[in-house]
């Protein structure tokens, strides 16, 4: 069965510290991975997708097919990074079915 696992429900880090939000997946085909973010009182929005290989707001995520992971990283956390983060997966070239993790609530302590 397709599944996305985010092992941490809550994560707190101090401002300026590195942050890593973990995401592991199980999928039988060729996946496309995403990170979505939801700031307080805002709608869920795309943060980044693995095929873009880009850095958004200082965040990066590398797809590790051997470990089936897609961890989100930022070297220096900022207060405005406090939000709920969801890892998501879809089958490449279709987008017809999406699987979301249960989310990690990140709090950056000033």
């Amino acid at each position, binding site marked *: 069965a397709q599944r996305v696992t*985010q092992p941490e*429900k809550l994560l707190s880090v101090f401002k300026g510290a590195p942050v890593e939000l973990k995401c592991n997946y199980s999928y039988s085909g060729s996946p*496309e991975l*995403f990170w979505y973010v939801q700031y307080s009182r805002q*709608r*869920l*929005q*795309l943060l980044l*997708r693995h095929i873009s290989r880009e850095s958004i707001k200082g965040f990066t995520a590398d797809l590790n097919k051997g470990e089936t992971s897609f961890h989100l990283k930022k070297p220096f956390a900022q207060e405005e990074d406090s939000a709920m983060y*969801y890892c*998501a997966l*879809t089958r*490449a*070239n*279709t*987008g*017809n*079915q*999406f*699987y*979301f*993790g*249960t*989310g990690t609530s990140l709090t950056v302590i000033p």
Partner: protein
Amino acid sequence: DVKVTQSSRYLVKRTGEKVFLECVQDMDHENMFWYRQDPGLGLRLIYFSYDVKMKEKGDIPEGYSVSREKKERFSLILESASTNQTSMYLCASSSPGQGKYEQYFGPGTRLTVT
């Protein structure tokens, strides 16, 4: 910018009522989705639609139905609302035909069933 709008931000209904949640997108997206979002459970897919009048069940379709009569509009229907359907409901759309698999979300409807 893709705009996905939902008919209500907050809704309070009584047990047994029929409830309609409406979602409209303005970017000609083929796919539309309905999720419910609950703390600790993340987003769970209720139904999705990949074309007008086409629908597929998601992970938790029980107690829900959907309607897609026009490409831009996707409705979620609770035939007889129950208290365990109290939740945040999110609508999303995407356009695989344009190579855009990522989903664009609406602001959500917080439904309370009393």
